[in-house]
């Protein structure tokens, strides 16, 4: 291999610089003959060096500088398109509707209890409501206030059973979130004993109240 390399180089040199019909052409003529190959080669080399060292490096620098900004732009785009404006409006509307279900102040609780008492009165029951302390709810956005109620049927009530059912339905239609947690009905020798009702009222947490 070592012995062939110079001869191959020599052969290449001959191919490159051979002047047809002039084997003993001087170096100047041989160089002139080689120019059509050498000049493009030099140009190719210079072009390649410029392309890969200067131009590409510049492009990569721009791209590296642009990358975090592009990521930011993409993130903004992703966030923009993660939720449609219609969905935002709908959610806001639902949140407003949901917030109306909450009993926000003690006065509102009192008014609600008064309303329920009147409802029970209208259906033949004497109602007493006892509002308890709000339960702690660490994870939730609402707290619950227990209400214990006792509905005593009036002696002259004609149909206490249907009156009770209507009263229970009224709890759901009160416009507030009232959870009926327990119902206890006892009848003794055709006489209605006081009906025990345990309710739960939803209230916003203190900071939720402030934000609303």
């Amino acid at each position, binding site marked *: 291999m070592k012995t062939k390399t110079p001869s191959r180089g020599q052969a290449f040199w*001959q*191919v*490159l610089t051979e002047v*047809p*019909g*002039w*084997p*003993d052409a001087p170096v100047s003529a041989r160089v002139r003959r080689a120019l059509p*190959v050498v000049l*493009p*080669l030099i*140009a190719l080399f210079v*072009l*390649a060096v*410029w*392309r890969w060292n200067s*131009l*590409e490096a*510049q492009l990569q620098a*721009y*791209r590296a*500088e*642009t990358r975090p*900004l592009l990521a*930011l*732009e993409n*993130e*903004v785009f992703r*966030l*923009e398109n*993660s*939720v449609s404006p219609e969905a935002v409006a709908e*959610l*806001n509307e*639902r*949140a407003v*509707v*949901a*917030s109306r*279900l909450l009993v926000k102040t003690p006065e509102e609780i009192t008014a609600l209890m008064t309303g329920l008492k009147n409802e029970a009165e209208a259906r033949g029951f004497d109602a007493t409501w006892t509002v308890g302390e709000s339960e702690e709810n660490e994870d939730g*956005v*609402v707290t619950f206030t227990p209400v214990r109620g006792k509905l005593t049927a009036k002696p002259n009530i004609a149909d206490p059973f249907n009156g*009770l*059912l209507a009263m*229970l*339905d009224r*709890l*759901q239609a009160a416009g507030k*979130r009232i*959870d*009926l*947690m*327990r*119902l*206890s*009905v*006892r*009848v*003794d020798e055709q006489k209605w004993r006081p009906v025990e009702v345990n309710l739960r009222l*939803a209230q916003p947490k203190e900071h939720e109240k402030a934000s609303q």
Partner: protein
Amino acid sequence: MSETRTSSSSAHARSRFRRRSNDTLGIAWLHGEFHAAVFRRQSLVRAWTCSETVDTLPAFEAAFDAATAAVDFSGVEVFLILAHEQFVHQPEQAPPFSEAAARSYLRGRVERFEKEHGPVLWVSQRMASVRQDAAYLLHMLPAAFYDGINSLLLARRFDLTRVLPASVPLQLVLESGGVAKGQPVLLAAATGSTTAVLAAKADAEALFSRTLQAGWDRDPARLGVELNRSLLYAKQQFGVAMNRVCLLGAADAATRAELQARCGEDRTIDVVASSPTDWLHAVARLSARHPVNLVAGYLGRKRRNQLIRRSLIAACWLGIAVLGLDAWATTLRTQEARMRLEELGANQAAMYQRRAELIARNQTMDTQRRFIAQVDEERVPSVPGKLLAYVASVIPQTVALTEFQCRHDPATARWRFRLEGRVDGDEETAHDLLTSLQRQLTRSVFQARFDDTARVIVPVSIAADALPDSQRFAVEGGLFEN
């Protein structure tokens, strides 16, 4: 002397450096004779014959310069018909296995020759054979002799493209119809001080070739004897009876009579007017790839070098074009990247602000979703009233419900219930009615599941000695559906 010649040759070459045409110069160097002719597109333009004997390379060089001047040759390509004492023609019988085997055998013969006489340029010419062996005629030209000719041509920027033995133009004359075909013929041509002989079959296929050291104008008797020996050789070796001898060139009646006398009265002696210039003309039509061309390999190498060179140039320019396009495209991409960077940089603050707004919006939405879920979607359904109504609707007339309890268990998020009452009838009746009631509640939308251990039926007696007329019961369970 040598330096003077070289410098004069170089000067000659430089003076011709720019003066080139497509003309071809044919040289016939035949044992002392020197003929030159210029052909333009295979048509004879001008011919010249050296009046002096040309035997050596210096004499050849002088004759060549004189010829190029006389014919005013401005081309590059030169071909040579050579008949010289250094140009050896050796018949060989090669094994008939294959072309490769024959070529290998011939190469071995050439190598043996080279051991004695030095390196040669060689080429083989297939001849007719009557035996199983393949007959060849090896043409071997000493490389030093060729280099001498080639060097002086190259020094003048001429390109020697063909070197052919004299047998080639003779066969061309035979094939071209210059000599009537149809019967075997012995062709004799004056090649300077010698006579080239070619024996051919009726279909013009060459049988053998000889060079006789005699000419019919100087020693017709001796030539006649040699021709007759050739006729006999053809008869003996190839079984071909040749009754016709054809002399290419000019021969007077006395010469013909002498030859007739030596060859036999039954042989025909014809004279065909043909000169070395005609042979040059015939060879000018040949391709440089003719199989008997001694320098065909050199030409192939030269073409390959030219192809490599041109390919290299083309590849370089193509590379420049491709790389240039790529660089242009990269420049455009760089400009785009710069503009994009500027645009993004200008909007950077706004984008950060917008991102913060959107993150806050999404957090608010998450809070709202949790709020809605807890306030509205997770509200406890109003099961107790519905269950009470359902129990009241399915309970039989003979069953009196005294207690109904339904409560929500926050730990399991399920409803628990308890029913107590009284059944009028015996224990079995109470059992059946309760089972029926339980089945109805189990199959209802509430899918009640009763605790087996919590079911109690107790008889109620009014008097101590009387049979109980009613049964008290209590059942408990849970609801699977709200």
